[in-house]
């Protein structure tokens, strides 16, 4: 049997089990006969499983999505917390799916999960870029993204999910530097560009006037091409809230502007589809306060973090903890992030 055929058969077996589990779960929840059909594995990593499916009750057809964590030991945050954050974002008027059910019972789909409404569109970055080129709606998408960020960052403490809180003794910027310093120590070879970037980050730490505090709010922390659902009409939804946490709002604006997410369309700073001005326009029009210096600081910080992340992936290949050709190749992508960093901090 070919490897391809084996993989397909394994996936089909999984799909059958998922269909049975979902049918059982939804029939219990709705106390009604439910048919689950048209299952489609949208992404299946070791960490996270996304399955599109239709649920039919009598005449009612619903297009839904299952998000499951096959191995609860490697969850970034409990799925209950993630679902609570999405619901909070939904109430605040963000473009997010409606979470219908959350369960930590692993009997249904092999791990904790939630089920949400489906918001149709494209997520694969290169396909998104082709769609945007055809529709010419890149600036509108970036504005809408900015509006979403503003609404998210405006959620006040009273309405935030209970698990979202800043608990560190130092601010988000200082805390990030401490984490990066630890990462640099793990490097397999000296990388002076990273040391230079660390010194730059220390020298340019965000500050406000004496007696004032830097803003800390609920942030998504991974809102970039790949986690955005885009249709012919524009931005449909923001996915993947598992990294959401408390942080500096400028972290959120800087992350989708990293060159890594532009896929070759470098002059379009926001995900390769729009200029920064469109993102800021949307953010400020919806009440957000943009700070160019802090934005830039977080861009440098995130570029360094991503560079160290790629080096870390190569390490997990080399030390045998995750031997994998993609992880190995990441080691040779570090130079890209070093180049980006040097440009961003050029004296």
């Amino acid at each position: 049997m070919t490897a391809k055929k084996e993989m397909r058969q394994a996936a089909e077996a999984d799909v059958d089990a998922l269909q049975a589990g979902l049918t059982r779960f939804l029939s219990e929840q709705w106390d009604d006969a439910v048919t689950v059909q048209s299952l489609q594995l949208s992404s299946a990593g070791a960490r996270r499983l996304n399955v599109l499916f239709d649920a039919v009750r009598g005449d009612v057809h619903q297009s839904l999505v299952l998000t499951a964590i096959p191995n609860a030991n490697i969850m970034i945050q409990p799925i209950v917390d993630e679902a609570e954050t999405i619901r909070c974002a939904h109430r605040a008027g963000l473009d997010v799916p409606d979470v219908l059910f959350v369960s930590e019972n692993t009997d249904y789909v092999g791990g904790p999960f939630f089920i949400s409404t489906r918001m149709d569109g494209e997520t694969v970055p290169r396909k998104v870029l082709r769609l945007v080129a055809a529709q010419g709606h890149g600036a509108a998408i970036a504005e809408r993204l900015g509006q979403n960020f503003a609404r998210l960052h405006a959620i006040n403490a009273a309405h935030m999910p209970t698990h979202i809180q800043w608990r560190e003794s130092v601010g988000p910027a200082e805390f990030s530097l401490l984490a990066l310093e630890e990462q640099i120590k793990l490097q397999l070879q000296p990388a002076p560009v990273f040391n230079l970037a660390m010194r730059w980050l220390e020298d340019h730490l965000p500050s406000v006037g004496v007696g004032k505090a830097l803003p800390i709010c609920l942030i998504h922390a991974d809102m970039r091409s790949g986690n955005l659902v885009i249709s012919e009409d524009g931005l449909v939804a923001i996915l993947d809230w598992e990294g959401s946490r408390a942080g500096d709002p400028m972290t959120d604006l800087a992350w989708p502007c990293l060159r890594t997410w532009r896929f070759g369309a470098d002059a379009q700073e926001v995900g390769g589809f729009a200029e920064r001005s469109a993102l800021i326009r949307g953010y400020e029009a919806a009440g957000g306060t943009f700070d160019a210096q802090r934005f830039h600081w977080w861009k440098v910080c995130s570029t360094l973090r991503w560079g160290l992340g790629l080096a870390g992936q190569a390490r997990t290949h080399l030390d045998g903890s995750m031997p994998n050709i993609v992880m190995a190749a990441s080691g040779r992508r570090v130079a890209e992030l070093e180049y980006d960093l040097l440009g961003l901090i050029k004296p």
Partner: protein
Amino acid sequence: MQDRPDQRELLETLTAFFEDELLPNLDGALGYRALVAANLVKILARESRSGVQSQHDAHLHLADLLGEPVEEQQAPEESTSMTHALAAELARRLDARDESLDQAQTWQVLMDITRAKLAIVRPGYDSWDSSTEQPQDG
């Protein structure tokens, strides 16, 4: 001394095999990993052509920046470990905020070394100038 095909010819043969035979017949996750593998073979081909020279240049740049003497006629392995030692020394002096390091020269040396790495791992990546993304008002 080896018989033909030589190293470069073998790497070219591998690249052609990946691109013409393997990749068109694979899709999904395995297809993606094969694409990554094909790219690694291309990196190796470029490294086999210019890797030694690139390493030597990095050594010279770092030695010049740090005021260290350069020994000519080193074996490639020795040059690699010397370059790593110099890079480690630069990292240490950056961490110690050594004021005798010329800032502009440090940046330029690191940029030259990074561009040389990119010429092997991702040619053309340095066509975009990220410094244009810096805030304009200071």
